[in-house]
């Protein structure tokens, strides 16, 4: 039986969860779970388009900066007295524009996405601080803020609204990736772009679309983040890009493209979230948590490798006497 890494992460997630239930006071409480999942909502949301991108052999390092820009814009416009109902669509539009710029540079100018998005990582974060400077805007309307915080849950569950939204979007993303034309094309582009192009797949258009979706989702995550903390700042979500990528890679999505499952990526995000919550509850120092994250990442690539090596070795040993 071949053990797939994404399954392994799923099993690990369940194991950690069960351990938490058994050993840690307060872990299983409705409040805590609502909080723990809500706490990674933005990272989780951004992990969805990131998974699609990485499968297609691309990466977007600018997602967290776009989150920051969106947060800063939301804050500044709100402060200037705009209506929240106008701000949100506008900010989402900015997300689309940012995605277009990334996608345009990658598909039209022909630059590698890693290089492009390192650039826009600085650019979007910079624009965020141009927009908002050192200010922090705080007085967001309760009517909207309540949808983002962990104290409001979907009736009858411990799911907060951002988490519920994530679940819906994750299902959509899973269907797209694994059972649609687009999904098949993504795998082909990621594994062998030339061959995909020669097979009539609209490689550039699809890549552009992915970056736009990533921009859009990141901008939306920016709004959620702003409402959740009730604070719009230029440095919101700084460094989240690494966390998003770590989660996706942890779920067994291959950075070289062409391989991976959405289930794995989601399991990766949740594992990081649950583990963080559990360790913090047990007063495990932050630096140890950082180390654990690192070890998990290394294990995520090393373990499948070792399993394969061991099973190949066993097979060879089993085959040897017959010849």
């Amino acid at each position: 039986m071949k053990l797939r890494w994404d399954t392994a992460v799923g099993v690990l997630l369940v194991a950690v969860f069960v351990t938490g239930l058994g050993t840690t006071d307060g872990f299983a409480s409705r409040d805590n779970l609502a909080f723990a999942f809500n706490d990674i909502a933005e990272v989780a949301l951004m992990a969805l388009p990131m998974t699609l991108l990485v499968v297609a052999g691309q990466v977007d390092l600018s997602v967290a900066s776009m989150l920051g820009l969106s947060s800063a814009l939301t804050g500044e416009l709100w402060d200037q007295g705009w209506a929240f109902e106008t701000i949100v669509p506008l900010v989402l539009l900015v997300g689309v524009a940012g995605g277009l710029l990334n996608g345009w540079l990658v598909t039209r100018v022909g630059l590698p996405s890693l290089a492009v998005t390192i650039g826009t990582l600085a650019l979007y974060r910079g624009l965020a601080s141009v927009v908002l400077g050192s200010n922090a805007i705080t007085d967001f309307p309760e009517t909207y803020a309540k949808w983002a915080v962990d104290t409001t849950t979907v009736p009858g569950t411990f799911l907060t609204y951002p988490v519920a939204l994530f679940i819906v979007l994750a299902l959509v993303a899973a269907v797209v990736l694994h059972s649609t034309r687009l999904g098949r094309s993504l795998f082909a582009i990621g594994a062998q772009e030339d061959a995909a192009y020669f097979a009539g797949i609209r490689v550039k258009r699809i890549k552009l679309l992915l970056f736009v979706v990533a921009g859009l989702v990141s901008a939306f995550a920016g709004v959620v983040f702003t409402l959740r903390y009730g604070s719009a700042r230029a440095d919101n979500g700084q460094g989240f890009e690494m966390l998003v990528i770590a989660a996706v890679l942890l779920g067994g999505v291959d950075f070289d493209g062409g391989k991976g499952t959405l289930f794995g990526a989601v399991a990766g995000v949740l594992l990081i979230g649950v583990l963080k919550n559990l360790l913090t509850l047990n007063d495990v120092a932050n630096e140890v948590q950082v180390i654990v994250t690192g070890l998990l990442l290394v294990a995520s690539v090393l373990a499948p490798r070792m399993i394969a090596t061991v099973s190949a070795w066993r097979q060879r040993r089993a085959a040897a006497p017959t010849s």
Partner: protein
Amino acid sequence: MTVTVDKPAPAPDTERSARSLVDAVFRAREISIAGALVLLVLFTWVAEPRFLNDQGVKDLALNAAILVLLAVGQSVVVITRNIDLSVGSVVGLSAFACGKFVSGTDHGVLTVLLLGVVVGGACGLVSGSLVSFGRVPALVVTLGMLYIIQGLDYWWAQGEQINAADVPQPVLDLGSGSVLGIPYLPLISATVLAGTAYFLRTYRSGRELYAIGSSPEAARLAGVPIRRRVLGAYLFSGAVSGFAGALWLARFGTVVADNAHGWELTVVSAVVVGGVAIVGGTGTVWGAALGALLLTTIGSALAVLKVDSFWADAIAGALLLAAISVDRIVNVRMTRALRKRSAR
């Protein structure tokens, strides 16, 4: 059954002009970056002459010295189609380790530098072994190492700070002193840079690094000891980062656990701006060093031009994008020109 007919050879002069064009394309990146750098410096200098006074030049060189070192180390790894995201953490760990080691003692400069190299080399060895022997993707492993080393560093430091007052004077002098008016740090970086460049061009193992990055499969079939070379590249990158950590201590005197936190992306930016292809196989350390110099100079220039610091990031990002886009467009144009010219 086969028919023997000679293929007509193309006229030699078109071939030669095609060749020089090829050369030009490959050198275009270094030239365009050097050009951008000169323009930037001139512009800033005209706007604010103090930018290039004694202190100004010294500051520019000192600021770039450490990033140049890191970019040199990183390029060697990137050339082999790998990446080392743990550099920032390694610098942090090494700087703190060196600080802790010298604090309140009178250890000599050489001992400190050696310690830095050893600490960094050890980190490089771990990353390198995982990548080369574990045959796992470099990005994931080094991202993991970034976290692991950083965590260890924090865990060790527990919020402790090493102050300049505790660091022996000779070590601090290394960071601020100079010979013949040239500060030590840039001198050291330039030496490492030149040595690495020479090695990459004139030694088999250096060329093999390019071969691995250009096509790992072909390298395997050509009998290149891939694992050993990749391990070597990481070891070098780690050792250089560790060395940079020791220099960091010398330059800033004050060290905490999170020095150089988040520098990995800056270093990778410098390397990419400098024309080392992220997919390996091409680029030079000279280019990477120019890239590093350009990035730090942008920062210094913006400050001197009194550009609001809020704008600094945005402008740096935009310039980075402009640099790689222009380079790419020029490259494509020249390739097309090459195609039309070399029409057989």
